[in-house]
């Protein structure tokens, strides 16, 4: 069977599974819709959190990103996992004790202010839409590449699926489909990784092969008779071609610290992740559930850097100095090179007209390839934006690493189909979680808690469904017409979460003295500072040499967070104390059982 048939079978099968689960897990109350009735098993919640968290970017782009960044890729690995430690220790158990449905619920009640509630709603909706546009686009890209349908048709199919289970099942439907999606995506990620680990190092487990010696079918060729560790060989290959050593970094240490910090705090402050901990029955379930979530995430996050190193070694070895045209008896480029060149994710310019691929440090092109419709003398697609200042002839899009891995390693057709299904599972599960945050923010935080408190349970559920339906359509619109700045706004999402929600929630739990005035001013100053820095450097042409202390916009959320904390402390000191009943609320959430809380006092 060919790849396309396999893809139809596997993707079709997984979709049928998701729909089946959605029908079984319909929501009948707002409690079901917002927090799955609060009865989800901690391990299932851990899996669902994993799928919720691991987006199209984690699945498709991350390994590729690390592959080109080497050591510096650690900012994503540590940032996006270390945040769970903060979440588990500092937020999840207390928010679970607090109960209720959303993050704005907590901010609004703890700071006795609908103003704070609305600021939280606006941030939650902005962060969620920022993210979801990228997911829908990811769905479209996977569809178009593997099923050869138009990107827009792909987005529409994705919308239809998400619409079905998010609108019908709410959090209940999403939770169980996400658990299934986790299984699909992790299987799809591990199978090619294991194959490649065997081919390059002869080790079954990628995490071990990563530190092992070259061996196996491809690895032996790379080693060329030497006995050498994969990472040593990779450092050697990288430096020979003028790149930085793979295991050492290029970014400044302060910048690495700041980016890691911002990603950690941002992760812990993202509303679609936090809300998952409202769905388990007890405080102790919230604690262990965060552990399971990180365990399931870590399986992918420790495999990704191994895949990155394997792919990097294999890429350099396969393409460097290879003839573009097939030359008998000499090294020539493999078939996948041309397949991906056709999709536009790879481009080659023969700058020195020797017919061979020179892959060295420096940007081969000015930005992404802009192809002319002509072919060059070797049959390559010509581009009009070659960068004459470098010797590098090869442009490689980072997304290729994961998507083309099965082809690069010559794996069977069903593995390629599996990767397509995995990418879709990652994108759809994240999209659904985010859309739910948007719909809950509108039906619960805005309608029920602020504007129409008299709304009945049934009306609120209907409002939640309508809001979810609209959110799906808006997300679909952004997927079809992606704003050019999607990649840039991801820095925004983490920066905003780190400089607004994270300090507000931490202070709310750990510092009784933190009051309404302090925390609202802290959030406003933190957001304004972070947003201005990002806008200046991402949209108004600020250049890298103007960075404060060399901190890039991705890392500025760390500084924004510190500023938020300081402002909140100072202002809280000079304004009226937190009211007694709110202080009792804080006492109440600090202890799992209700013995010393306000419920016992009444």
């Amino acid at each position, binding site marked *: 069977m060919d790849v396309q048939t396999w893809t139809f079978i596997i993707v079709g099968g997984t979709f049928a599974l998701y729909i089946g689960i959605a029908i079984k897990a319909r929501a009948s109350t707002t409690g079901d819709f917002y927090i799955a009735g609060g009865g989800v098993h901690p391990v299932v919640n851990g899996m669902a959190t994993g799928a919720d968290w691991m987006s199209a970017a984690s699945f498709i782009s991350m390994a590729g990103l*690390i592959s080109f960044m080497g*050591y510096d*890729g*650690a900012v994503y*690995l*540590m940032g996006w*996992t*270390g945040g*769970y*430690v903060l979440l*588990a*220790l*500092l937020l999840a*158990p207390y928010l679970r004790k607090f109960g209720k449905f959303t993050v704005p619920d907590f901010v609004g009640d703890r700071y006795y202010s609908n103003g704070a509630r609305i600021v939280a709603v606006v941030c939650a909706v902005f962060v969620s839409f920022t993210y979801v546009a990228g997911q829908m686009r990811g769905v479209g890209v996977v569809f178009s590449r593997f099923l050869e349908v138009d990107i827009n048709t792909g987005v529409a199919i994705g919308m239809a699926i998400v619409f079905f289970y998010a609108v019908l099942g709410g959090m209940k439907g999403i939770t169980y489909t996400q658990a299934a999606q986790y299984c699909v995506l992790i299987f799809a990620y591990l199978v090619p990784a294991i194959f490649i680990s065997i081919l390059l190092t002869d080790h079954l487990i990628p*995490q071990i092969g*990563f*530190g*092992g*010696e070259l061996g196996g079918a491809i690895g032996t060729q790379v080693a060329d008779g030497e006995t050498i*560790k*994969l*990472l*040593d060989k990779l450092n050697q290959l990288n430096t020979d071609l003028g790149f930085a050593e793979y*295991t*050492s*970094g290029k970014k400044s*240490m302060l910048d*690495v*610290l700041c980016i*890691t*910090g911002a990603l950690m705090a941002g992760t812990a402050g993202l509303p679609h992740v936090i809300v998952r901990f409202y769905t388990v029955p*007890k*405080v*102790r379930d919230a*604690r*262990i559930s*965060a*552990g399971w979530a*990180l*365990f399931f995430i*870590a399986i992918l*996050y*420790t495999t990704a*850097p191994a895949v990155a190193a394997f792919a990097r070694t294999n890429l350099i070895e396969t393409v460097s100095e290879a003839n573009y045209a097939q030359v008998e008896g000499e090294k020539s480029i493999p078939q996948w090179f041309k397949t991906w060149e056709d999709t536009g994710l790879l481009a080659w310019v023969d700058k020195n007209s020797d017919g061979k691929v020179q892959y060295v440090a420096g940007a081969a092109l000015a930005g992404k390839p802009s192809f002319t419709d002509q072919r060059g003398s070797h049959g390559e697609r010509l581009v009009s934006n070659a960068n004459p200042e470098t010797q590098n002839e090869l442009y490689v899009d980072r997304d290729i690493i994961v998507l083309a891995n099965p082809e690069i390693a010559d794996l069977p057709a069903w593995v390629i189909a599996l990767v397509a299904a995995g990418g879709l599972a990652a994108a759809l599960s994240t999209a659904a979680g985010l859309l739910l945050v948007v719909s809950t923010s509108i039906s619960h935080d805005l309608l029920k808690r602020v504007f129409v408190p008299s709304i009945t349970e049934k009306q609120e559920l209907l409002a939640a469904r309508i809001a979810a339906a609209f959110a799906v359509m808006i997300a679909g619109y952004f997927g079809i017409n992606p704003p050019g700045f999607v990649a840039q706004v991801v820095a925004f999402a983490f920066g905003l979460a780190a400089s607004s929600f994270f300090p507000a929630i931490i202070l709310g739990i750990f510092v009784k003295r933190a009051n309404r005035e302090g925390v609202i001013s802290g959030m406003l100053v933190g957001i304004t500072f972070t947003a201005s820095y990002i806008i200046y450097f991402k949209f108004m042409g600020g250049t890298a040499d103007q960075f404060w202390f060399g901190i890039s916009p991705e890392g500025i959320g760390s500084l924004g967070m510190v500023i938020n904390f300081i402002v909140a402390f100072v202002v809280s000191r000079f304004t009226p104390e937190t009211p007694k009943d709110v202080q009792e609320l804080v*006492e109440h959430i*600090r*202890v*799992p*059982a209700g*013995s*010393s809380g306000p419920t*016992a*006092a009444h």
Partner: protein
Amino acid sequence: MTTGSKQDNADRYWKRNLRILFSLLAVWWLVSFGAGILWADSLDSITIPGTGFKLGFWFAQQGSIYVFVALIFIYSWLMNRLDREFDVRED
């Protein structure tokens, strides 16, 4: 029993809770920001025996993540024990 002693119990529980938090977060900081970033360069002079991993690089791309997972399970276990000790466990 007066509400005073209940309050006392809750305060002591909270102090013990904070002590657990600070110890675990210290480890969290040491493996990531410490070993993975600040001291990564000097740790890189050590290679983990039998592998090609330089120690700083390994902490940054593998080790810190394993420790993070362990930390949350340890936290969960310590807190459940503390809950029982102070009789504040939910049923």
